[in-house]
């Protein structure tokens, strides 16, 4: 393809079947994919680091290391997607153009368009968040409208990359397919970690005997757990996603406290000498293993029937594991570096310390039953969404 072709000139194309075989076959992982993965790894490190920064030091600027890592996500993903879209739109590689979709005159892989949408959403959130701080004060909480837009953008980047990986897997050689499959599970795990972070308030250890905790998990987790697992078509897909999620969170919980830190904002309620991490990861690994085992005999079922079983099995197995684990987290045995129950943010008021290890059990029994029933219903819907998303990725070609 070295010759120069004027822009807009008609290119005589060979028959479709020949082009698919010759041009679209994927024999190595393209560099834009690695670039996007690097961006997501960067954000994955920057996110928990930033939260820990806010819990330990407080004061930040646009240029803290954690913020730079988060911003690098947009930069790296933007470069990769711009390359893919511009080469498909203005380049002369017929195979690249054939494996693309068309939006507003531009051509490119569908996943690249989704990821670009995510980048623009993240960019949009910046001036929105800045105004929000000026209007309502610095929001020291995870869920605010601008933060949600940022999170949506970040999630769209991951969804886009998973779509790209799935499309490449459909025409990849076996060895490349394995690499792409692993990357799919890793990106899925980063989605689970992101949703888990959003749920932090509802899934705080003291809230784990509340049905609201299980309702929140049933709404947010099944789709992002099931979709990459189902899309990867690996028999331990769910376990892989949940395992990677667990390893990532444990790494942060164990590594962050190794770095010294002290509060630079007041009032200070807790004496801080090092970075404070978030808590021990949710035991999503348990329902993940159960689902992988379940699907060995049920994967051929109709999707609604499969979702009707998968959702409740997810919720109930998670409940069976997390509920007693919450009891353990309240004991002195969990107040160590492994389980991390001895950490407090500098702004945790002293009132929390009067009894920070008391499980909240304020839901009346009827409310508890109603919320758990809602969790089961939602789990069916979100599991069905996960299967639909996974099937979509299985069919993805472009």
């Amino acid at each position, binding site marked *: 393809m070295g010759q120069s072709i004027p822009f807009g000139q008609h290119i005589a*194309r060979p028959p479709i079947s020949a*082009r698919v075989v010759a041009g679209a076959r994927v024999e190595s992982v393209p560099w834009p994919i690695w670039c996007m993965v690097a961006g997501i790894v960067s954000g994955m490190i920057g996110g928990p680091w930033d939260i820990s920064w806010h819990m330990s030091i407080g004061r930040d600027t646009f240029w803290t290391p954690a913020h730079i890592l988060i911003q690098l996500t947009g930069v790296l993903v933007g470069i990769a997607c711009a390359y893919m879209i511009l080469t498909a739109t203005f380049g002369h590689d017929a195979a690249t153009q054939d494996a693309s*979709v068309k*939006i507003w005159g531009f051509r490119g892989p569908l996943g690249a368009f989704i990821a670009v949408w995510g980048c623009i959403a993240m960019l949009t959130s910046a001036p929105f968040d800045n105004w929000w701080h000026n209007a309502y004060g610095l929001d020291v909480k995870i869920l605010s409208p601008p933060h*949600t837009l940022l999170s949506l953008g970040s999630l769209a980047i991951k969804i886009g990359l998973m779509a790209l990986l799935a499309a490449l897997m459909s025409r990849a050689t076996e060895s490349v397919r394995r690499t792409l499959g692993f990357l799919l599970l890793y990106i899925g795990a980063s989605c689970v970690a992101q949703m888990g972070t959003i749920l932090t308030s509802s899934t*705080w250890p*003291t809230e784990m005997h509340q049905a609201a905790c299980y309702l929140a998990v049933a709404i947010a987790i099944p789709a992002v757990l099931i979709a990459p697992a189902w899309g990867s078509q690996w028999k331990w897909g769910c376990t892989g996603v949940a395992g990677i999620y667990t390893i990532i969170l444990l790494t942060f919980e164990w590594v962050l406290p190794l770095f010294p830190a002290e509060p630079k904002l007041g009032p*200070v309620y807790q004496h801080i000498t090092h970075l404070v991490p978030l808590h021990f990861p949710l035991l999503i690994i348990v329902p993940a293993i159960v689902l992988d085992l379940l699907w060995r005999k049920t994967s051929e079922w109709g999707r609604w029937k499969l979702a009707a079983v998968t959702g409740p099995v997810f919720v109930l197995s998670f409940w069976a594991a997390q509920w007693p684990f919450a009891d353990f987290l309240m004991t002195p045995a969990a107040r160590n570096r492994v389980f991390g129950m001895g950490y407090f943010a500098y702004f945790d008021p002293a009132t929390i310390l009067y009894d920070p290890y008391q499980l909240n059990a304020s839901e009346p029994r009827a409310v508890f039953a109603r919320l758990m029933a809602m969790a089961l219903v939602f789990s069916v819907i979100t599991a069905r969404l996960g299967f639909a998303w996974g099937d979509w990725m299985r069919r993805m070609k472009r």
Partner: protein
Amino acid sequence: MTIGLGRYMRRRTFGSIAIALLAAVSVGAHVGSPDVFFEGDAGPYHLFVTVRVPQVIPGIAEIEVRSASNDVDKIEIVPMRLSGAGSNFPPTPDVAERSKQDAQFFTGSLWLMESGALKVRVSAEGTKGKGELAVPVPAFAQRTLPMERSLSGLLGFLMVFLAVGLVFIAGAAAREGNLEPGETPPYARKRRARIVMALTAVIVVGILYLGKAWWGEEASNYKRGVSFFKPPEAETKLANGNRLVIQAQGQDPEWSKRVNMEDVIPDHNHLMHLFLISAPGMERMWHLHPEREDSKFVDDLPDMPAGHYEIFADVVDKAGFPWTLVGQVDLPQIHGNPMVGDDSSWTGTALTAQSGDVSVAQLADGGRIVWEKGSGPLVANTAMVFKFRVEDKDGNPAKDMQQYMGMAGHAEFVSSDMSVFAHIHPAGSASMAALELANGAPKGTCGITEQCVMPAGMTMPMPAPVSAEVSFPYGFPKVGEYRIFVQVKRAGQVETGVFDARVQ
């Protein structure tokens, strides 16, 4: 109040951490005058401190420190709670930057993360060693910020772009996403894509609607926080001809649940300092001290002519947060009791636009109070020290000055439209009760929580002689006409000198 408030305003985040139009600016400490001005000693160094309180919380406070001497090398500043939990662990202090033009002037910025009664601890270091003082700071959100048209336009465009983009991405996914490379989408797929786009558009609109509702809810919560700290209303009732009953009514329903008038603490000897100022001309002023009866305050008024009066009533809650109750009352001719104790009054000419600056106030015994104003104009938002000299009838410095409620004098700065009211002391704009919580009770006085009972065998210390010069650190918050009431005590009599000022 403040711990609860902090949670009300901030809410917990991250689990255990997890907290339109330019709203009328009103404040708890005073009225319309949110910044804090303070003059005091940090060990061997005499400092003037100004805290420019942020308009949103959490937000950045600007701190200005001026040293009276040139022997201060370093100033450190740090925010803390005024009392209780959080008042013992300071974060890493910030070093204030020394001005290149003025070596005795230091500036810095501090994040105030919570609403309520806070303090800024100032540490000075220099050739005489180290010293420290704490300035009480009532921190609260004062306003909401409108979105500029340019930003509104940009965000609106991006919102539409993202919404439409999502619809088209969904369409492309349905039309071509799972087609073999190179294959042209058949009509059925194109039709399906249009249906998917329509459904996506509905979903996107739904998401935008929910987002708007959420934003509205957040803005509403914030506005409630702003309302919470607006000056409570002083609801008044006149009983038995001259008994004024005052009840505080917050501007937010939560206020009465969180601020208990039965828990207010004494501020220089009194639970409430009530100012009745005739409106609109301020030609009469009463400074009275009602007593508390349950959650109400009552005062048996002295003789007063019928008229319309503005009410400003200062109280300090148990956490050290100062509140000024505001209201208006139309009083009939009052035939009351003679004034006793620390109560005082003044009658004179009205403040008008033609009044001009008045810097000498004549006193009844032929003496006078002179405002050492200087020749420069008075400029809004500039910290100043207002110095007044009390002279006897012969023009000599008054030798019969006494402490008036524990200090050399009191001053009330009131704007002609009554939108600014500030009750200032020689130590500044902070209430004395809050100062005591921040720094401990000064030697030889009774603390808030202490009983004023001397141990057996000891006698009350003699009060220090009071200088004929009294000064007040303060800064006018806005341009306009102001009346300044300066009150001192001489030979057992409270004297009030009144000055008018035009602020540019």
